[in-house]
């Protein structure tokens, strides 16, 4: 059985393997540096649907079917699906998962959804209550802009600190199989608010939460940053990554080039006009399901600390003048146990 280490970390005891992943992304992500790692690159950001929200759910459904097909399973083999997104009442996920007719946990911790889904999935498998679980997350640039910002046709300028919501869905199948890579630890994030109010600088809002969770992970596991081949946060972008780096130094953990961010990896800053980088639930989800899982399988990376980050604001909380709290959930993934 899993056991608690320190204040925030859970050590997974029985093997919980990531047996396969699938990533579906939009056209812009398909022109980015990680393009070759994605399973499906859509030509049409509407994915044949009539609205952005319906498109997001269809993308979720496509990713779920893809991961089941890649793992050579049928949907009946999946015990539970755990997924979340950014839309009101989690409809991006629910309307996509619905058609598979499997038991479902909808979750929300904003863009750190994939970290929370993988943590809950790993614990459930470790407990013996399930054999195969899909953990996934999704976001869509257009549905997110519509809900959180302004209509797409409005002629406005994006701040240089802003990030670009990734369109896509990333899914992983967790299982009690004996083949790696394995989820070995999950560090549950606390909600951290350093008083950032600028909704066009999400990296700054989330960096303190990322640093808090990463430091807690090292404290609880008594590991050093050098233990990992790669530490990668979810969607802090360039500015947030630098801030998290400085905050970690302040806490006494000197990180180096092995620390990066999915929002930096997914877009080409110079060519793709994405300012501070990528963001959204799909940013960490597809970067893991595509690029990181591939690197683990090829053993170019053997030990990674994957730390999806989320900004816990709503348009209402922002309009009422509340600052933006952040959260980050860390998942340690290793090829050997």
């Amino acid at each position, binding site marked *: 059985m899993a056991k608690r280490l320190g204040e925030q970390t859970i050590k997974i005891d029985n093997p919980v393997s990531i047996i396969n992943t699938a990533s579906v992304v939009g056209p812009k992500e398909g022109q980015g540096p990680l393009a070759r790692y994605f399973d499906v690159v859509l030509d049409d950001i509407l994915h044949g649907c009539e609205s952005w929200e319906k498109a997001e759910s269809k993308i979720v459904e496509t990713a779920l079917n893809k991961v089941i097909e890649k793992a050579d399973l049928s949907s009946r083999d999946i015990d539970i699906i755990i997924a979340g997104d950014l839309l009101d009442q989690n409809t991006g996920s629910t309307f996509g998962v619905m058609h598979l007719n499997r038991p479902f946990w909808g979750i929300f911790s904003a863009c750190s959804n994939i970290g929370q889904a993988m943590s809950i999935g790993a614990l459930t498998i470790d407990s013996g209550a399930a054999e195969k679980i899909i953990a996934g997350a999704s976001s869509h640039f257009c549905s997110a802009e519509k809900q959180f910002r302004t209509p797409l046709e409005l*002629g406005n300028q994006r701040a240089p600190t802003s990030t670009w919501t990734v369109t896509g869905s990333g899914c992983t199948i967790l299982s009690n199989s004996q083949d790696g890579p394995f989820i070995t630890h999950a560090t549950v994030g606390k909600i951290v608010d350093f008083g950032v109010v600028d909704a066009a600088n999400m990296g700054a809002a989330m960096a303190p939460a990322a640093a808090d969770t990463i430091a807690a992970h090292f404290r609880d596991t008594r590991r050093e940053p050098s233990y990992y081949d790669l530490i990668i946060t979810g969607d802090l972008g360039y500015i947030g990554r630098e801030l998290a780096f400085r905050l970690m130094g302040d806490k006494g953990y000197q990180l180096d080039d092995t620390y990066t961010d999915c929002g930096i990896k997914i877009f080409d800053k110079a060519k793709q006009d994405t300012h501070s980088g990528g963001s959204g639930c799909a940013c960490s989800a597809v970067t893991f399901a595509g690029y990181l899982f591939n690197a683990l399988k090829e053993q170019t990376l053997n030990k990674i600390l994957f730390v999806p980050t989320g900004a816990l604001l709503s348009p209402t909380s922002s309009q009422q003048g509340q600052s933006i709290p952040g959260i980050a959930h860390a998942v340690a993934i290793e090829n050997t146990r």
Partner: protein
Amino acid sequence: MEKTKYQELVNELSPNSKIISNTLKAFLIGGLFSIGGQFILNTFKSAGIAQDSAATYTSIVLIFIGVLLTGLGLYQRIGKFAGAGSAVPITGFANAVASPAIEFKKEGHIMGVGARMFILAGPVIVFGTFTSMIVGVFYYFSKGGLL
């Protein structure tokens, strides 16, 4: 790290907008919209239409242009380049009305287009009306020699 010290670090690491080039672009495009407005106004006036009516017709033509460019997806691109240069002219007002109308059409004619058309431009009308009524109250009573 303390919150105040963190905010300083955020300010230090966050790049500022390119204010010089943004300002020049806003000047150029804002000025061009004004020249266009002047040209339309002069055209109406030379057709023998009175000054006040010509001004209203000019607004209507500019609003038509703003809505059309919005529908074609071009106003978004102009706005990305020009910033305030395309938001402040009356074409920007048209863009602020047309963009939610188009964006929310999937939510239906009534609660989508109808209800959300003024989510961005509404405040301008609310506070414009409010201020002008206060102006009217002062004007009315000062005319009567009360103020």
